[in-house]
């Protein structure tokens, strides 16, 4: 069973890059959904289950911080793990996002293995089960 990733970023080229990196990281069986901002992501998440959300912070309409707040306040969606993928690599920002409820943080630029390791850590059992089919 493949696991499903929602990539939230206003840059289509960054979404394509993340998709490729995940596939190249040995997670070639992953399914992807994409959203260009937090609002679009919330709409998708209310219709379809995903195993993990990878989101940028700086986006128009609804940014990643607001998305994390909304997910954590939702009885159903709060169990979906969120990993921040952002150019904002300051310690203050990372701590702020983790304390809001994000489960992981990957600072851009990142090595492919960094993203894979963070996904494996956050997905834990779900990822292991997907590998066993």
């Amino acid at each position, binding site marked *: 069973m493949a696991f499903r990733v929602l990539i939230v970023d206003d840059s289509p*080229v960054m979404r394509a*890059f993340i998709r*490729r990196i995940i596939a190249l990281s040995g997670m070639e069986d992953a399914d992807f959904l994409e959203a260009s901002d937090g609002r679009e992501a919330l709409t998708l998440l209310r219709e379809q289950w995903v195993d993990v959300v990878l989101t940028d912070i700086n986006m*128009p309409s609804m940014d990643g911080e607001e998305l994390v707040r909304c997910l954590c306040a939702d009885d159903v969606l709060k169990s979906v793990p969120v990993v921040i993928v952002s150019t*904002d*690599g*300051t310690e203050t920002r990372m701590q702020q996002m983790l304390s809001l409820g994000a489960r992981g943080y990957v600072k*851009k*630029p*990142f090595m492919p293995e960094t993203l894979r390791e963070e996904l494996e850590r956050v997905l834990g059992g779900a990822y292991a089960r997907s590998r066993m089919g």
Partner: protein
Amino acid sequence: MPDREWDEMLAAATSEVLETMFFTGVDGPARAGGSAGVPRLAARLGFEGTPSGVLTLSVSEPVMRALAANFLAAEEGETLSAGQLGSVVCELANMICGSLLSRVKTEEHFRLSSPELVPEGAPGPAEPPSQSLVVSDGVGEGVVDLWLALECRAN
């Protein structure tokens, strides 16, 4: 912080982004204007914090095409659209700016604006670039010019 330190951090940030996300090496500093007359793609973004400022990046179009092809893993012979090139140059500026600011020792976090393309023919910064770096390694050879303008605020 002295300008020299900012320039060094800018060069380090640019190298990190190009090597990590664009799989491209940086050979070191170049002389500005080395590719005069070649069409260029430029993007800029502002940031707010202590200090605030604006980062502008300009790359010759042939080099930007090669960088974008690396970033997007384009097939050989595949032609990238102007929209894709524009998005990649904006993302390049965004990541360099983020990497630069993460090197600033501060408790505060910076707010970055969305990067925007600088229209072709629009007047660029009047000053010489803060950094001009030669990139090579499978993208041919070209120069990435960067301007970092910091606001000095009275406390």
